[in-house]
């Protein structure tokens, strides 16, 4: 099998879920590097080139707030989910669960059809 279509589709599939994961993870205040580590430890690898522009985009949309602070003698930018972000996260999670249920149903029907 040609790996390229799979890789493209995999990235496409992950793109939306990464936003959801980032918003969910930022219910607790974190800076970029620890956020990346948290997600990576949970099996969701995001490279820095994707994460930092995404954080800025979400902040410009009012879904995150950020502030520069010193920690361990180094300045770091900490991000936290805003009130608007929490509302949007709830809506997105409801949507995610609905998609998940529908997909499960489709897969169930498919497997019944194959039996």
């Amino acid at each position, binding site marked *: 099998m040609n790996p390229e279509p799979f890789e493209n589709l995999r990235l496409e599939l992950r793109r939306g879920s990464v936003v959801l994961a980032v918003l969910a993870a930022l219910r607790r205040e974190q800076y970029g*590097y620890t956020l990346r580590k948290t997600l990576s430890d949970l099996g969701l690898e995001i490279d*820095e080139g994707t994460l930092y522009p995404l954080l800025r985009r979400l902040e410009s949309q009012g879904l995150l707030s950020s502030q520069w602070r010193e920690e361990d003698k*180094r300045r770091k*930018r900490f991000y936290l989910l805003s009130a608007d972000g929490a509302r949007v996260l709830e809506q997105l999670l409801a949507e995610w669960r609905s998609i998940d249920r529908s997909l499960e149903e489709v897969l169930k029907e498919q497997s019944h059809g194959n039996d």
Partner: protein
Amino acid sequence: MEMIERYLEAVKFWLPKRQKDDIIEEISADIDSQIEEREAGLGRELSEAEIESILQHCGDPMKVANRYLPQEQLIGPLLFPIYRFVLKIMFLCCLLPTWLSSIWTIVYDHVYRAQQIHTSWLAAFASAWSVWLTTAFVTAGMVTLGFAVVERIQQKSHFLDEWSPRKLPPVRNPNQIQRSTSIFELAFALLFFVWWAFIASAQTIHLGNSIRVELSSQWVWFFWGYLALAAANVVLSSANLLHPYWNLRRASLRLLSDFAGAAIFCLLLRAHVVTGFFAASLTNDQSLQVIHVLDSWMDKAFPWSIVVSLVIVAVGVYRVVRVKPQGASTA
């Protein structure tokens, strides 16, 4: 570390002006955290090669910076297929005929060759090529500019999003012949037949009272050729009016008639049939000059007529190939 500074400087160059320092500080903090963690794990300072590997993983500076920039495009995905289609049309209808005509002129036009080609064929083609290339770039540039403007308007007004299924064009049968087209063709063929029979039957044509044009003996072939073609077109247009769908027989007849018409016209341009041009106000020398000018214009028009003829024949061939026997009614 100099390598990190160089990397950050390279990223900074492409970043949006207002956010440059802020973004660079964040990327720098991330790289520092990565190095710190690796050093803690290894219990020693990282080597230059290891730092290089971290930076390599961060990505190409221009790509990294590009992700912070707003997504912009000159022509978006909505307009791009139309843009490509228009470019193809421009190429086929404007540039290709110009190029073919220029090649013909270089190869066959003795006057042009005498005036323009002082050195060699290669120099002549090189000179023509620069003109063609300029024409191609200007044409493509104008089309691109036009579409870029439409794209900007579309982004602001979203005028292309306002559509309705009711406004879509009706499904068209490619073999259908519009009645209005048949009526127009029939009227034109009839008028031409009558006009040609009255005006062009003799070898001497009178234009008003004061102008007389003498034609060579070859003219009789052109006269009967066009008269026969006009008669055939009257019959064909009448048949098309009664049976408004192309079938193989009528499409082939139209191809034959178009090919014959185009061929006769091309031959007419090369035949130099005007042997005398007499007008009350012209001297003999001036009359000869008029004939010379006419012949010269016909020679110049010849390559264009070849190109147009090829297009006409190509359209006719396409029509024959396209005819679907099951969708066509028989005449």
